[in-house]
C-alpha cells in the first residue's frame, strides 16, 4: 500500500475532494447567483480533474485511464458551458424586470 504511485494518488484525490467541499461551501454561503456559479464551475473542472487523476494513479491500470479521461473532459466541457449559459440567462432575465 505504500508505493509512491499510491501516495501521489491519495494526495491528489484528497486535494480534489477538498476542492469539491470548498465549492459546496461556496454554493451554500455566497450571496449572489453569479458568485455561486463561479464556485460551482471550479468544482466541475478542477475538483473532478484532480479526483480522476488521483483515481487513475491509484488504479494503476491504463484501461481505466480512458474512461476517467472521458469523464473529466465531458464534465469539464458541459459544466463550464452550462455555467456560461446560466449566467447569460440570468443576466438577460435581470434586464427584463
Amino acid at each position, binding site marked *: 500500500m505504500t508505493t509512491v504511485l499510491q501516495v501521489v*494518488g*491519495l494526495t491528489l*484525490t*484528497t486535494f*480534489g*475532494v477538498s476542492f*469539491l*467541499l470548498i*465549492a*459546496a*461551501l461556496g*454554493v*451554500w454561503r455566497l450571496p449572489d*447567483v453569479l458568485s*455561486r*456559479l463561479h464556485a*460551482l464551475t471550479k*468544482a*466541475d473542472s478542477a*475538483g*473532478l480533474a484532480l*479526483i*480522476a487523476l*488521483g*483515481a487513475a494513479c*491509484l*488504479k494503476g*491500470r491504463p*484501461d*481505466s485511464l480512458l*474512461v*476517467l479521461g*472521458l*469523464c473529466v473532459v*465531458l*464534465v469539464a466541457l*458541459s*459544466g463550464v458551458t*452550462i*455555467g456560461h*449559459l*446560466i449566467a447569460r*440567462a*440570468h443576466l*438577460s*432575465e435581470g434586464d*427584463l424586470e
Partner: protein
Amino acid sequence: MILNFLAFCTLVATLAALPRLIIGPTAADRIIAAQLAGTGTVATLIVLGTADKTPALFDAALVFATLAAVSGLAFVALQRTRL
C-alpha cells in the same frame, strides 16, 4: 480506509447542495445546486470505484456526467423558450 472517508466527504459535498436547492430564491440557484449534486455524485462514484477495485463504477460515473450535462442544458433551453 482513507478512500472510504474521501467517498464520505464527496457525499457530504453532494448533500451540502440540498439547502441551496430548497432555499434558492431564483431558478438559477436551483439548477446550480442540481449541477453541484451531479458533479458530487460523479466524484463519489469515481472515488468508490478506486476504493473497492470495481471498474464498472467508472462507467456509472460517465452516465451521471452525461445526465448532469443534459439536465443543465434542458433548464437553459426551457428558460429561453419561456422568455
